[in-house]
């Protein structure tokens, strides 16, 4: 019997009650959907995490604690690393340069993804924002007692900002060469410009956004865009992008006053 014990014990590091890798003779203890989703997220298996979380959300749509997790999973699949953003924040690396320069190293590269991949990444970030927006505002407000409230606000700040920059890059970066392509700017419509600006305005208007430095950069960028030459939003934005690429973004005249309330924001169609 001792030999059996020793042999069994030396058989590996798995838990005997693990439903997948355990001993079938032992009653298995199954992990919950939430536990599996968390493990998938930790293992950066975003597709599995999204699948599990979306099923859980569909089953219990008012359990809002899962929404920030699902948003993080979508953002992770899009190639946005919150951890890298965090590390940069700690080391001060994220605070230098303008908005575009600050975020450039943390966003998916259009050249790496190609047109279809980049559109899929944009769709994932859009889904992240949608999940966070679905949480009732009172539950994610600074006054909320929910444990996920500050995460939801911070993620919303990050994803709205990154979505805006990614969306801009769609009209600025050649997916073949990865370089700035001024000729692509012509394809940006007024509606596209409004999508970008509305998202940035929503970030600027957020109360207790969780990242004042980023919010300040968004404010600076908005002011700078507004100060550009052009009759339309699209023209101003194109001028801003061109100037940013040239490294000659004009100084913002004055930061805009915070909006009284967070405006409803239209995402990309």
């Amino acid at each position, binding site marked *: *019997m*001792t030999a059996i*014990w*020793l042999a*069994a*014990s*030396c*058989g*590996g*590091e*798995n*838990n*005997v*009650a*693990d*439903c997948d890798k*355990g001993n079938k003779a*032992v*009653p*298995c*203890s*199954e*992990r*919950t959907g939430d*536990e599996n989703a*968390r*493990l998938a*997220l*930790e293992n*950066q298996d975003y597709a599995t995490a999204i699948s599990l979380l979306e099923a859980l959300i569909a089953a219990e749509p008012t359990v809002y*604690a899962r929404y*920030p*997790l699902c*948003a*993080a*999973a979508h953002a*992770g699949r899009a190639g946005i*690393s*919150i*951890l890298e*953003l*965090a*590390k940069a*924040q*700690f*080391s*001060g690396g994220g605070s230098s340069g303008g908005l575009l320069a600050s975020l450039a190293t943390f966003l998916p590269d259009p050249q790496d993804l190609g047109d279809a991949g980049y559109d899929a990444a944009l769709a994932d970030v859009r889904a992240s924002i949608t999940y966070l927006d679905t949480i009732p505002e009172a539950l994610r407000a600074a006054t909320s007692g929910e*444990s*996920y409230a*500050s*995460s*939801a606000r*911070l*993620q919303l700040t*990050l994803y709205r900002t990154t979505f805006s920059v990614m969306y801009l890059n769609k009209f600025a970066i050649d997916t073949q060469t990865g370089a700035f392509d001024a000729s692509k700017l012509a394809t940006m419509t007024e509606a596209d410009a409004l999508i970008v600006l509305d998202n940035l305005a929503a970030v600027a208007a957020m109360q*207790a956004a*969780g*990242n*004042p430095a980023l919010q300040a950069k968004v404010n600076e960028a908005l002011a700078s865009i507004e100060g550009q030459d052009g009759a339309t939003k699209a023209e101003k934005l194109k001028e801003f992008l061109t100037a940013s690429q040239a490294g000659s973004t004009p100084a913002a005249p004055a930061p805009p006053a915070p909006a009284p309330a967070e405006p409803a924001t239209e995402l990309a169609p």
Partner: protein
Amino acid sequence: MRRRWQILGLVFGLAGATPAVARKTNQAVYEDPFDLGAGGASLTRASKDGRIFANPALMPQGGGLFRWLGSTISVLANKESVGTAQSIFKKAQGGGEATEATEAEQAAETQAFIDKVFKDPVRVGWGFSLALVTSNFGVSVFSRFEPDIRARAYGPTGLPEVRFEAESYHGVGVGTALRTPWKALSVGVTGKYLYAAEPTISVEITDTESIAAFQNQDLVQDLTSHNTGVGIDAGAVLLLQGHHVDFSVAAKVDDLGSTSLKGAAESPTEFKQVQSAGVGLTLHTGSDAIHMAVDYRDIGNSYGEELFKKVYAGTKVLIRTYVGVSAGYYNGYPSYGAEIDLILVRLAGTAYTRELGDHPGADPRRLYMFSLSAGF
């Protein structure tokens, strides 16, 4: 610049104090390292002063008056975290010098710290006991501290999180036991004074608002607060001895009537009453023995844990009383141990896994423990 010191200061504060990992539920407040190697199945056979806490009724078993007089020190770590732990505690010792570091140096150190913690979570611990155990009486002063620093790219709310937890258990156990008129049955009781804390703190490292809260020095002081309480364990062992085969059955109640702990610490405030039962089978010659045991803890399901966290099973092989090896299942994971008795000194090594989550694989910690005992 200050964020680095908020986090490192928190780590150092915990390290400099006396603090624990998965919180105590159905396991004894102090367990002998060799017993852990045998899956923690110690109701029917425990080592040294582990008897006082595992089951006081074990004291009358065996020959002679003195069972153990000595001290045990142990260290515990996750293999991958040794380097990280060394770095952190080195900094903790020389933390004062770092205030002269430039902002760039501090930022680089912070970056290195975050990289290390995310790569290799820190799990360390140490324990100490000083005890006298006779056939009818035992007293043990013990101290056990296990901090756990776990970093995740995705915490419970989706943000990167660094979580500090600790189990800090200290106290005195005084046990007494006797054989009943029916000599096969012994009963025992242990009174224990506990000084315990289970601090937990979670930092979402992208959230400047929550990090700002750590500027409050009172926070670290709160984390080092301990609660105190007095509890009672009671046990019984029925040992049916043969020439070469012994059979034993044990029953034990931990924290009779539940042990209430009071103080400034948030946790623990109560150790619930837990009823447990175990069986053991020993094959032996005059000097060698093979002991197989299974414990079923928390029969009343006070803590509502899954079956795999309630069953402890293992085998100890004792050769000429000088060498022992053990193997078993602790929290459902394989465990191993070995002990060498050099007359006055005992060396032991143990490898086991604690499941800190509710289900297998949810949040396991593979731990390696080494202990040195001096006594006889």
